[in-house]
């Protein structure tokens, strides 16, 4: 008499726990999404802003050179653009990078977790906006930079420090809204 009752009870409790599970899972998901809203993935985790690039020693895609942060320093504002041939958005972004390069803005490429030959073909076919391309075949530098995908673009000041990070494609709107104001401010600040 006693035993079936307890079994019945347990079964009932099992059912009621189960029906709350989807709600709990959804609440967790909503919290995650809300944190994503606040966080805005296009902003850099603040620990890199103001810091120089992490140390690295990696080959160049364009020649038989080894690149280090020091070899990239030349007193210019420049962009560091993370790209790869496997990245669809990079193809969309590419023409705009060519425009920026044509305007005289130096762009360093970071070829991220890519096939070197495919990357060379990509530049040969679509044009090369980069003054130098760092080959990050294993993605170690990308990891140090906190890259979670491609494309991403970092703005480096003349001292080689990171000023801004933009995740996602670079286009005219993003340039006007985020990059240009910093460059304008730097120019007027320099004149004073």
């Amino acid at each position, binding site marked *: 008499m006693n035993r079936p009752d307890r079994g019945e009870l347990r079964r009932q409790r099992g059912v009621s726990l189960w029906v709350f599970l*989807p*709600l709990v899972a959804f609440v967790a998901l*909503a919290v995650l*999404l809300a944190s994503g809203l606040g966080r805005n*993935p296009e902003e850099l985790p603040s620990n890199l802003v103001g810091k120089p690039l992490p140390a690295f020693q990696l080959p160049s895609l364009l020649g038989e050179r080894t690149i280090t942060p020091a070899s990239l320093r030349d007193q210019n504002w420049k962009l560091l653009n993370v790209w790869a041939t496997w990245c669809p958005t990079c193809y969309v972004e590419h*023409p705009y990078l060519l425009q920026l390069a044509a305007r005289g803005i130096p762009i360093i490429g970071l070829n991220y977790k890519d096939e070197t030959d495919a990357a060379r073909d990509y530049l040969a076919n679509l044009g090369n906006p980069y003054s130098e391309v760092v080959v990050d075949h294993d993605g170690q530098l990308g990891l140090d930079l906190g890259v*979670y995908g491609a494309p991403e673009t970092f703005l480096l000041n003349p001292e080689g420090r990171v000023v801004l990070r933009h995740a996602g494609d670079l286009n005219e709107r993003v340039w006007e809204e985020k990059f240009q104001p910093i460059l304008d401010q730097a120019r007027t600040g320099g004149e004073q």
Partner: protein
Amino acid sequence: MAAEIGHLSLWVALAASLVLAIFPLIGVHRGVLAWQRYARPLAWLQWMAMTAAIVALGYSFYINDFSITYVANHSNSELPLGYRLSAIWGGHEGSLLLWGWMLAGWTALVGLLSRSVPLPMVVRVLSVMGMIAVGFLAFMLFTSNPFDRALPWFVIDGADLNPLLQDPGLIVHPPMLYMGYVGFAVAFGFAVAGLLEGNLDPAWARWARPWTTVAWCFLTVGIALGSWWAYYELGWGGWWFWDPVENASLMPWLAGTALIHSLAVSEKRNLFRAWTVLLAIITFSLSLLGTFLVRSGVLTSVHAFANDPSRGAFILAFLVVVAGGALTLFALRAGRLSGQGGFKAMSRESFLLGNNLVLLAATFVVLMGTLFPLLGEAMDIKVSIRSPYFNAFFVPLTLLLILLMVPGMMSNWKRQAGKPLVRRLLWLAPAALIGGWLGARLPGATPWPGTLALILALFLVFAHLDDVVRRALAYNQGLFAGLRKLTRSYIGMVVAHCGLAVLVAGVTVVSFHETERDVRMRPGDVAEVGGYRFEFESLSDPVGPNYQSQKGHFLVSRDGRPVTEMNPEKRTYRASGQVMTEAAIDGRLMRDLYVALGEPLGDDAWAVRIYHKPMVRWIWLGALVMALGGALALSDRRYRKPMGGVAGEQA
């Protein structure tokens, strides 16, 4: 003027949906018939107001009213008329209007086509859909009004439609996709209505089923169109990128596929009822989540043309109300829904449950892959999720799904004896032989997962053909008379399952056997790809309506015989200065030839990309066949037969 009419119509629609969401529902609970009778006319009023709004927006595009911000941002006086009209859903505000219009359309249709359903049930479904409409209309009116004027500083000419969207595929793709997304709102409405009423009997499943199937068909076609568009318009020849926006449409599809199958069990066997309701809630919530992901800016994507983080909060709040509310209701009511009647471990029910679990696991894989950047950020782990992750889970899950489909489709309800089933599964042997032979015959090596996929695809087709013949012969009236007796639902299932086989074969062959070459070519040069000879004959500079073009002319031949001529283009759009690649594609059933112009390399030379893609078309063909299967199942006479009592139907 049109803009004001449109704007006003949106307010009328909001008022109608508010009243629809509240009063008829109160009418049901208080038993006031008069209040319930308002539900259908209110649904119609809402639909007419939304139609007026979308017509007003279309007219504004037609007359190039650039004083409307949305029109100015998405059109241009030089834009051809067809694209000016498709620009209605070319951006965020307009695509929301399309969403709302379709939701209103589905709501009105449910009101129209449910004469056989008891009134309180219809009223509840319409009210729930009205609640969803309230959310969307408020979202539109308060954050994303397509009729906002840019007065007094309006532009003389528009900024033009994103050239990526200036394509016939993009005229039909979003409406198809949205019909699917929004269509699942009906299933959701039925689920919530059923929970409210506490009644989820087989009759309930039968009402919800055709609506779910039709939404699923639209979504299937929509996803296939999107994949096809990416393939020919983006210019790098891929057909699926596991991009967040693609994932956003795949998740409700996977959950919706599970829902269709679980509805079948609910209807036929009065089982899985809580599970079915949960799936209906999950499926529509994933549709909303997709909208959130695409429009919130939380994730960046190549397809997310207009995202704005400030709108994300609204959609998230809406998602919390809709999905959270429904799941709470589920938690409170589902405990009473445990099914009657059991089934053995070896039965059709078990296999369908397995199918549901596999599909849900696949949904979960996509969800995790899509949200991992967020999750990683929250936990401070830096990762990038790409196709290897998805393939690692998706390939085995698909193969497992096929392995469950065949015995499931062959098994009886309640219980299935093991021996006859195993005997019928012997089809695996010839399928394996032919599949292995085919795999070996294809150029290049086929790794074992590829061969296994081909074998299973063949197995799937053979097993279904075998089943069709057996069932037809079971009538003892000869094969053809027997075939005619099979129900449309059954034939639809067979067709849809074969569509999956076609799709799997296409994915397998093109993934392992495509050839891609990037070559530097000048007029007169020749390249050989995949056994075809491509001659770059000449280059011209035609002028389009709103763009300038450079157009290559290629002669393609094989073994000395001409095959086709191909004209890839590089277009520069005047208004935006954006450069677009228009690939030339020669598509046949068994292979696509794909030529795209890269960059000019000077000296008349071009970087040219040439692809040979065997059976790539099977991917979209397979999806269309699946949708056709759904449409056949929909046309089953059973759904048009009026039903009397609820209790009378028990299959």
